[in-house]
C-alpha cells in the first residue's frame, strides 16, 4: 500500500472515530427514536411510525410554537442588522488604532458565558431592574411593567448575544471593498450619500447576507436565552424539545420536535440562499 495514500487516513482516524461515535451515531439514534411510539405506562414502544411528526404538524398549539420560533428568529435578525450595520460602518471609518479598540469592545462579550449575559437582561428587565426603576422613578408608570417572560425580552436577549456575529460579518465585507472604487465614485461627482447607497451598500450585501444567516440560524435554535427570558410561559422549539425529553420523558416526541427544528433551520437557509442568488444583486453572491 502506498504510504502517501494511507497517510491522510492515519491522521484522521482518531478524530473521525470520535465523530462517528459521538456525533453521527447519537444523531442517527435520535432520529430512529423519533419514529417510535411512547406510552405513559409502558414507555417507548417499537414499530416504525411517523405519528410523532403528524401529531406535531396537526396541532395548532405546537404549530404556534413553531411560528413563534420563526418570528423570534426573524425579529432578532432584523434587530441585529439595524444595530449592527451602522456599528460596522462606523468602525470601518475609524482610524486603525481606534478600530482595533472598538473591535475589542464587540468581541470581548463573546468570552462571557451566554448564561451570564442573559442573566444581565433578567436584572435589567426584572421588576426591580434598570428599566422599571427608570420608568417608576420618572413617574411614567406607577407599577413596574412585566417585561420579563415575553417574546420581546427573548428578542432583546438574542439580539445582544448574536449582534457580534453580524458586526464581524459586515465589517469583513466592508474591509474587502476596494478603496479605488470609492475614489472613483467621488471623482465622478457622487456625494457621500450617493457613494454609500450606490457603491458601499451593494458591495457589503454579501456580509449582510452571511451575518443574517448566522444570526437567524443561531437565534431560532438558541436555548439558554429563550429559556431564561421566556421560560415555560413563552416556549420556543428548543425549550419544547428539552421539556418533552428531560422533564416529561417522552423521548420519541421530543426527538421528533428536535428534527422538526433542524428541518426548519435547514429549510430556511436553503430558501434564503436561493432567494439571494436570484435577486437583483445576485451577481455579488456568486
Amino acid at each position: 500500500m502506498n504510504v502517501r495514500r494511507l497517510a491522510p487516513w492515519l491522521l484522521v482516524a482518531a478524530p473521525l472515530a470520535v465523530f462517528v461515535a459521538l456525533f453521527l451515531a447519537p444523531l442517527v439514534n435520535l432520529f430512529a427514536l423519533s419514529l417510535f411510539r411512547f406510552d405513559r405506562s409502558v414507555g417507548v414502544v417499537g414499530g416504525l411510525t411517523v405519528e410523532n411528526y403528524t401529531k406535531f404538524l396537526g396541532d395548532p398549539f405546537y404549530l404556534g410554537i413553531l411560528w413563534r420560533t420563526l418570528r423570534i428568529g426573524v425579529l432578532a435578525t432584523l434587530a441585529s442588522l439595524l444595530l449592527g450595520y451602522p456599528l460596522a460602518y462606523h468602525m470601518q471609518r475609524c482610524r486603525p488604532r481606534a478600530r482595533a479598540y472598538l473591535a475589542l469592545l464587540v468581541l470581548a462579550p463573546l468570552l462571557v458565558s451566554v448564561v451570564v449575559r442573559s442573566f444581565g437582561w433578567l436584572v435589567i428587565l426584572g421588576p426591580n431592574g434598570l428599566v422599571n426603576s427608570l420608568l417608576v422613578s420618572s413617574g411614567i408608570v406607577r407599577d413596574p411593567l412585566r417585561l420579563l417572560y415575553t417574546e420581546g425580552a427573548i428578542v432583546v436577549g438574542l439580539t445582544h448575544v448574536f449582534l457580534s456575529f453580524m458586526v464581524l460579518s459586515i465589517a469583513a465585507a466592508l474591509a474587502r471593498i476596494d478603496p479605488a472604487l470609492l475614489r472613483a465614485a467621488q471623482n465622478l461627482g457622487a456625494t457621500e450619500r450617493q457613494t454609500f447607497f450606490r457603491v458601499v451598500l451593494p458591495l457589503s450585501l454579501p456580509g449582510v447576507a452571511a451575518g443574517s444567516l448566522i444570526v437567524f440560524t443561531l437565534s431560532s435554535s438558541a436555548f439558554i436565552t429563550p429559556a431564561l427570558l421566556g421560560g415555560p410561559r413563552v416556549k420556543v422549539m428548543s425549550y419544547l424539545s428539552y421539556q418533552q425529553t428531560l422533564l416529561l420523558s417522552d423521548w420519541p416526541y421530543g426527538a421528533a420536535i428536535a428534527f422538526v427544528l433542524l428541518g426548519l433551520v435547514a429549510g430556511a437557509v436553503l430558501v434564503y440562499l436561493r432567494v439571494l442568488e436570484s435577486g437583483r444583486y445576485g451577481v455579488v453572491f456568486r
Partner: protein
Amino acid sequence: MSVATTAAPGPAVGGHEPAAVPRPARRGVTALGVFSALVYAFVLAPIVVVLLSSFTAADYTSFPPRGLSLRWYLEIPRNPEFVESFKVSVVVALVSGALATVLGTLAALALVRFRFRGRDALNTFFLSPLMIPGVILGIALLQFYARAGITKTPFSLVFGHLVITIPYVVRLVSASLAGLDRTLELAAMNLGATPWQTFRRVTLPLAAPGILAGAAFAGITSFDDVSIALFLASPHSVTLPVRIFTYIEQTFDPLVTAVCSVLILIAAALVVVIERSLGLARVFGSDAAGR
C-alpha cells in the same frame, strides 16, 4: 455555520490595512457616532449591570443596587456547590480543550496537506456540528449514552464537548496551515532534516499561533457551554454555567449576581491575556460564527 465558509475569512476588523470606507472629512460628533455609542452601551449594559448590582447590601437583586457591600461575595465560599462546579468546569474545559486541540490538529493536517478522495466530504463532516443546535446534540448524546449503558461521569461531559470544540480547532489550524510558507519546509529537508524533524522544528512552530488560537477557542467554548452540559452533567459533575442556569431558573438572588461577576472578571482577564498573546480578532474575529 455553513455561512462562514461563504464569508471568506479575509482581514476582518482590527487589522491594520487601510480603511476601505472613506474617513469622514469633518471631525467631531456625528449622528453615526452617537448611534454607535448607544449600540456599544447596549452591548455592555447587561455585563455592567450584573457587576454593579453584585455589590448590593439588600437581600434581593435590583438595579440600581441598594447600599454597597461585599457581603454576597463573602457568601460564595459558604455555598460549596458553586466552588465545586467551578472546579468541574475548569477540569472539563482543560481536558476537552487539550484533546480537541490534538484531534483537530491531526484532522487539519490531513485536510490541508493531502489531496485524497473524500477530502471535501470529510471537511464538511468535521465542521457540521456547528450547524446542529446544541440542545439537539445534548439530547442525542444523553439518549445515546443511556442506550449504550454509559453512566454519567465527568468524562461523558468531556466527550460531548469534543464534538462542539473540534470543529473550531480544525478551522483555525487549517487556516494557519494553509497560510504557511512551504518553501521553509523544503529548505529544511534540503539541509538534511528528516520529515519528522521538519515537522517538529519548522511546521509546528510556524503553525503554533493557529493551534494556540484553536486551543483557546476550544477551552472557552467548553467552559461556557450549557446546552450540552445540561443534559450530560451528573449530580456530582455539574459545570458552573449549568449550576447558574438551574439556579436562576428558580430565583435570582444577589448570590448568583456575585458568582456571575466573578465569571465576568475571569473573562476580562482572558480578554487581556488573549489580546496580548494572540490577538482577540485572530481567535474570535475570523472564526466567530460559533454558537
